[in-house]
């Protein structure tokens, strides 16, 4: 069973509240959830919608069309026909002036009858929550969980009543699959924040920018509980530099932004690299250049982040593929940053950041914070020993004697400024050696699909979900396709594709950008060339249908 709900309306009409309760309650009834927000860059008005795809098996991406379409206003009713499946059901108030424009199956909720329960203008949203829960066979008692501490008792009680009234108006069409296990539900931004907290984050400094703001919001809400410091910087330069200042003094530190803010952090990345300060930066991509599409998605910053800053040095770029991966990869980013004393960039995107997924509870017992420090005093200690590729780090105060110089120039082993040819080469060679060691440590791509594939899709980051579902769909239509997906996208080792490449296999590069940035990096580093590509760059996320349809076009080339 796979069903999709769309909740559509204007900003400020309660889309997020409806979405939140539907996700939470259906997850508790044992359903799998994947939800995505499609919203405009404005605080009120506009046309926004949330899509929730619900299944009894794991869900990896949202469908584009709805089985249940909740229209919160007249404009949403007008748009419903284009976003609803054949036989899909519209739910809306009967008083909307566009009512006659929708010809399909609909449940028109009696607006006058609802007014007997409450005069609250957003009450219909809660009615819809009750109807959805009933449709999916949820228990009426679960509606008791509709409660928000931030709201007054009277609002909470009216919301419950509205939902119960909605529950009564609807017929059940499905039954929940199984009882709820220890499953959690969260989005990609929260997963990044939690990964950082598990890794021992002490200081997070950032400037607000969509779609990355969810990270700082989540961390700030838990600042006291976690004994951390969260600071809103005056700009992204300050955010990155203060995170580096903190990291250079032994606190695991991080900043987060989107592409425009990342552009301002470029000089800081070079500084972190040459001063060998472990820093983690999350770039939650949105379409660019410049202001671009603030609340939409794209994977078009990769070529930029792998080369950002003047000069040559080692860095690591990690692009989480799922909400769960965002947690574990962010955790790993901090260990890698401290092991190699390099900047680690987490390349997320709006799709991942705003996707809500029901997943297994994180296994914190499997994780170990590895700081790679040199804690004992050593009279011969050299902070910037040219032979030292990993570990052996000290910061001021780690032992009571050693003095630490953190420097931005070409420097000697102690951090003193130098212009010697010998030192310049030694420093550069250290960075080059570091890149080679890092390449060996980074993880290989994950394979999924038919073992007898004649077509191999290559993807990175959040494209994983839609592509995985497309692979399933295509193989169910008697194709033989497979995919590999990368989380660790840079640096890549020369032989990374060898296990997957066969002479008779068609290689299709799938990326949420127009220029096949990762495909080109792979070609540059491995010599392997893709013959076809599937790209999306309209600011919207891939869906499995989009990929499967595109495959049908190139299949017989």
């Amino acid at each position, binding site marked *: 069973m796979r069903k999709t709900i769309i909740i559509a309306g204007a900003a400020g009409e309660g889309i997020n509240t409806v979405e939140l309760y539907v996700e939470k309650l259906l997850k508790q009834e044992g359903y799998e959830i994947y939800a995505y927000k499609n919203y405009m860059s404005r605080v009120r008005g506009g046309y926004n919608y949330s899509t929730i795809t619900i299944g009894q098996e794991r869900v990896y991406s949202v469908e584009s069309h709805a089985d249940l379409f909740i229209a919160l206003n007249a404009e949403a009713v007008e748009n419903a026909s284009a976003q609803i499946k054949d036989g899909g059901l519209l739910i809306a108030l009967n008083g909307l002036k566009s009512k006659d424009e929708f010809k399909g199956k609909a449940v028109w909720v009696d607006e006058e009858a609802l007014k007997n329960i409450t005069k609250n203008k957003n009450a219909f949203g809660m009615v819809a929550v009750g109807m959805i829960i009933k449709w999916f066979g949820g228990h009426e008692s679960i509606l008791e969980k509709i409660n928000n501490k931030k709201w007054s008792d009277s609002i909470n009680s009216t919301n419950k009543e509205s939902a119960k009234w909605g529950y009564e108006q609807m017929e059940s069409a499905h039954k929940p699959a199984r009882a709820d296990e220890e499953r959690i539900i969260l989005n990609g931004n929260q997963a990044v924040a939690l990964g950082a907290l598990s890794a021992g984050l002490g200081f997070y400094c950032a400037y607000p920018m969509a779609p990355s703001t969810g990270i700082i919001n989540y961390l700030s809400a838990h600042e006291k509980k976690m004994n951390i410091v969260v600071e809103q910087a005056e700009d992204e330069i*300050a955010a990155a530099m203060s995170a580096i*200042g903190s990291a250079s*003094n032994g606190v695991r530190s991080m900043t987060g932004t989107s592409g425009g803010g990342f552009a301002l952090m470029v000089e800081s990345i070079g500084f972190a690299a040459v001063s060998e300060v472990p820093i983690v930066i999350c770039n939650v991509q949105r379409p660019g250049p410049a202001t671009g599409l603030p609340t939409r998605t794209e994977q078009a910053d990769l070529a930029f982040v792998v080369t950002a800053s003047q000069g040559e040095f080692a860095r690591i770029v990690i692009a989480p593929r799922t909400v769960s991966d965002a947690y574990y990869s962010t955790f790993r980013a901090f260990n890698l940053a401290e092991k190699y004393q390099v900047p680690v960039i987490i390349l997320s995107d709006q799709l991942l950041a705003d996707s809500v997924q029901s997943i297994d509870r994180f296994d914190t017992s499997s994780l170990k914070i590895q700081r790679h420090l040199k804690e004992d005093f050593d009279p011969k200690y050299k902070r910037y020993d040219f032979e030292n590729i990993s570990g052996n780090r000290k910061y001021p105060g780690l032992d009571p004697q050693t003095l630490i110089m953190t420097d931005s120039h070409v420097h000697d082993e102690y951090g003193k400024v130098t212009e010697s040819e010998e030192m310049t080469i030694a420093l550069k060679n250290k960075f080059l050696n570091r890149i080679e060691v890092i390449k060996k440590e980074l993880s290989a791509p994950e394979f999924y699909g038919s073992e007898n594939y004649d077509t191999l899709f290559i993807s990175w980051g959040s494209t994983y979900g839609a592509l995985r579902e497309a692979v399933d769909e295509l193989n169910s239509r008697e194709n033989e396709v497979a995919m590999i997906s990368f989380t660790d996208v840079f640096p890549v080792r020369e032989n990374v594709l060898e296990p997957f490449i066969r002479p008779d296999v068609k290689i299709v590069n799938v990326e949420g950008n127009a220029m096949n940035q990762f495909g080109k990096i792979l070609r540059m580093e491995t010599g392997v060339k893709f013959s076809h590509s599937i790209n999306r760059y309209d600011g919207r996320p891939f869906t499995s249908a989009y990929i499967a349809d595109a495959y049908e076009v190139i299949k017989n080339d």
Partner: protein
Amino acid sequence: MIDNKDTLKTVDNPFVTNNPTSWCPGCGNFSILDTLNKTLFDVGLKPQDVLLVSGIGQAAKLPHYIHAHGLNTLHGRAVPSALGAHVANNALKIILNSGDGDTYGEGGNHLLHNFRRNIDIVHIVHNNQVYGLTKGQGSPTTPLGQVTRLQFDGMRSEAINPLAFAISLGCGFVARSFSGDPEHLEEMIKAAIDHKGYALIDVMQPCVSFNKINTYKWYKDRAFKLAADYDPTDKIKAFEMAQMFGDEGIPMGILYKEDKSDFMSRIPHITKPLVSYDRKPDDIEKLLDGLV
């Protein structure tokens, strides 16, 4: 020319190094370096207690010439780096040295917002009213009309008034001193170290190579010490006093002082240096409970 290097140097001062500097002979920075060395030692600090932070410029080289922890960052970025360092470990005494270009030009935005934060640092601005490292261009404190090696017809912008700027933004310790008066400078640095919060000392520091107008003599002829009965807590008077600069005289001393909560004391849940907290992966279990 004043060179009191030898008179200040004491063999048992652990901050003093023999590192060669790349400053021009006669540079005002020497006196600031020597005075800072002496003061750090005199107030009882050890090199391990001190973090010298800087950006880029002639003044910013100073951390390489003092035996203490150092953080030599990027042009204009010393202040946000100091913020991070201070948040990480507020047991370290942070002394930030930067030039007028680094502080008031490239780093201006950071400066104003860290006055607001009131981070507990000592910030010594080596203000020679010219760019030294890049060889003689105008700086934010070069007066309107002053000819430089780049502005051949004179500066087209007015100079900023750093002290009035700092006072107006609520910086709680605003002082001026002169590299040609090491005793006064020492007094100012001591008071700045004692002050809890952002302490800005703008130090008139002649550039012997590129500023032929604001020379030792020029500053010396105009500088005067604030009267003994001057009240640095009167913000309006302080702002008025800060307007005075040039032929009418240049006031030296603590122009403004206001005791208020510093940044870390506004984060009361952090009760010891942040770096000393133990953290474990399962610290998030209680947050995960909220996501079930």
